[in-house]
């Protein structure tokens, strides 16, 4: 789930990695905190617009087509599986089979689909903002080995994919064509290809490991090149984030935006409208930052 990196000239990609993490932790928490359609819908549209602004809507659209399919499937399954819901919308019977499409099923399905869709788009934005070097910088003081592994895997995974594509092309000369034959044959051929890829990768990985040692890897405790310093903008931005997040959580504490009993599900509760504004504010705070950043241009 990656459609690229956000331009390094934007405000959001320049904030301290810890602030970015703070934002995304807050965003994912909010997506799990509410189950009212209006609020989840607000979060979904906001995240979508925010990602579109950072990645360009054209790039996001191609990726979004896949998510929409998944969301439709979720709604359909909820409609079919929620047979005991309230508010009958449509009914169909054939012998002993009785299919009921209920308002509860529809609302629950839409909420679930929007929530999952928003999470996927938010994760794409997370990948675009919190790049591997930033993640590695954050993890390095806590779990240095994991940070190193994460960094190395970025190169190795791309090398692995590259090799797989080349092998898929050249192994046609050895009779392995992945796009031909029934599914069983295709699986067998993919297995053969993976075996070759594995042998090839192991031999080059062993050489790479020796060359890492030759450049001093493992000789002593490693230092770290990437360093980020806290700026005033980071403090203001994280202050805004924490304030908004606290306000939203307090509302949630009052029971706003959440219905425990699935059969009591409604599209909009009267208190939901009070939450829309702080939610919009939280999700779009980076856009406010971009505006301020441009206003302060010399």
């Amino acid at each position, binding site marked *: 789930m990656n459609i690229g990196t956000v331009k390094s000239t934007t405000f959001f990609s320049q904030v301290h990695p810890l602030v970015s993490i703070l934002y995304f932790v807050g965003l994912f928490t909010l997506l799990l905190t509410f189950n009212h359609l209006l609020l989840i819908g607000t979060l979904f549209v906001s995240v979508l617009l925010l990602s579109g602004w950072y990645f360009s809507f054209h790039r996001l659209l191609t990726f979004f087509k896949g998510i929409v399919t998944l969301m439709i499937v979720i709604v359909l399954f909820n409609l079919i599986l929620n047979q005991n819901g309230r508010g009958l919308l449509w009914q169909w019977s054939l012998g002993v089979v009785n299919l009921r499409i209920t308002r509860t099923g529809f609302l629950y399905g839409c909420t679930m689909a929007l929530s999952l869709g928003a999470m996927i788009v938010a994760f794409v934005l997370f990948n675009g903002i919190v790049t591997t070097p930033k993640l590695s910088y954050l993890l390095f003081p806590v779990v240095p080995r994991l940070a190193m592994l994460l960094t190395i895997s970025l190169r190795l995974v*791309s090398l692995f994919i590259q090799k797989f594509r080349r092998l898929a092309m050249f*192994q046609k000369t050895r009779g392995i064509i992945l796009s031909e034959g029934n599914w069983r044959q295709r699986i067998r051929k993919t297995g053969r290809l993976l075996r*070759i890829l594995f042998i090839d990768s192991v031999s080059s990985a062993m050489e*790479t490991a*020796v060359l890492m040692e030759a*450049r001093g890897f*493992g*000789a002593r405790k490693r230092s770290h*090149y*990437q360093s980020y310093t806290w700026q005033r903008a980071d403090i203001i931005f994280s202050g805004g984030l924490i304030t908004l997040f606290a306000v939203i959580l307090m509302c949630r504490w009052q029971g706003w935006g959440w219905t425990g009993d699935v059969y009591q599900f409604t599209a909009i509760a009267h208190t939901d409208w009070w939450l829309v504004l702080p939610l919009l504010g939280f999700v779009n705070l980076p856009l406010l930052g971009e505006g301020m950043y441009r206003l302060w241009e010399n």
Partner: protein
Amino acid sequence: MGELIRIDQLNFHYPEQARPALAEVSLTIESGTFVTIVGATGSGKTTLLKLLKPELRPAGEQTGQVIFHDHSVQTLSRKASAQQLGYVTQDPQTQPIMATVIEELAFSLENVGVDAADMTMRIAELSNFLGLDKLLHRSIESLSGGQLQLVNLASVLVLKPEVILLDEPTAQLDPTTAQTFLAVLRQIHDELGVTIILTEHRLNQVLAMTDQLILLAHGRVDYVGPVSAGLRQMYQTQELRPFVPPIPEFFLAHELAAQPLPLTVTAGRHALQMADYKLVGQEQTVPPQKQMSPLVVVNTISKSYVPGETILRQLDLTVYSGDWLAIIGKNGSGKSTLLTVLAGLQKPQHGKIRLNQRTVWKLKNKDRLQQIGYLSQNPTEQFSGRSVTAELRAQATLVGVSDVAQAVKRMLTVCHLTAVADQNAFDLSGGQQQLLGLGLALIGKPTLLLLDEPTKGLDPVTKQYIGGILRQGHHAGLTIVMASHDMDFCAAFALHCTFMFNGQVSQPQLTRDFFTRNFFSTTPVNRLVKQQVPEALFWQDVRCATKGGES
């Protein structure tokens, strides 16, 4: 200059090998010298290089020692070894471990615990020195082979080593890129005083910057000393004669007196001029022009991987039956893409390719394999990970050879692979892998053979051997199309040559016409004697008529 490395009676024996890889090697390397180690495949030069750095020491039995700064190199701490002895390998893709150039440069410094402020200074200084400042934030996978090898060198140099060891660093690069890399190496040596020790097959550019030449044969040191005398000894040694670069070879073969032996075209021309040598061309036998029918017709094909970046641009080409066509061009010019499209391994977005009037990608895979043999520039990409015999047997069965056992036996003999028939294909040497790849392509007796850089990374002896196998096949009626940047190989073997540039190929020309008309892309001997014998490509094409006005 003082003694930096001393090798004393060094012997090295790999497990389960009959003879030692190195025997009684003793030599001294002084600080600040540029040392080139030359030897045929299996002569022990890579083993010798690896024994100079503790982390690279291969498994095996060693006697004798390597002394670095008066201490055994094996006692060097890992940190000291990383900081003082740098190592760059042959394949540029193997060394990088990080995602971007700047991270790759920082990796070495992070390993030895340099603090962040010092790291920034070192990276800034080095990237400006090597001209890498524009590449710092580029991803490793977006770099060309030459740029990548430069980054590999930089990631070693950033540790400020005293010695840099390089194992055939230009083997995977095209000549122009190799020249750029060697120019940087010379700059590092001349301006920073770093000791350079490298092994190399392509010697025409390296020798001009070499202070000390080491010749290895069967694990023993044959010669240590200045280049000129070393070249004369190489020329006398049957095993090393093919390694002598074309310019000094010209002078040695014609027994022209020149001291020191010229190593560059300029020095060669100067020597010829000073001694007033008059050269005349040898009688050339022009190959008879047969009426050939078109075998492959390429009609305005276009191919791009990324929208907006066209690799093949409305390309037209006709390959005639019985031809041997060489496509010459830089790395990244689209030669490999053209060959894969010709082989039907991928489809162009526009245009048609017809083999015997049938669209190539519409042929069934088996039919296509029976008609087209293909050898990738990295032959391991076509291996299945089995023994040499099993690989050949599987391919013979796949393409429907009638007597599989006989065909396998014949191919093992032709490709000199009988001794390694039971070894796994991935465990063979680079030259043997290339020969096996060729065997796999030829075992079905195809009508068309497509070769992508068939001589890449090979020593001159294996190169000549592969040329011989291809010539035999060509005489038997095989049509060959090869992409290469090896001018000497193309000039020696191809019938026609074409230049690939800007996604298109030029009109194919007879090989001699092609090279004698070119100014840049021609053989070193042609550049040397162009003024007197414009049609000469090799030393054999020229005869020395008079010297200084004498007849």
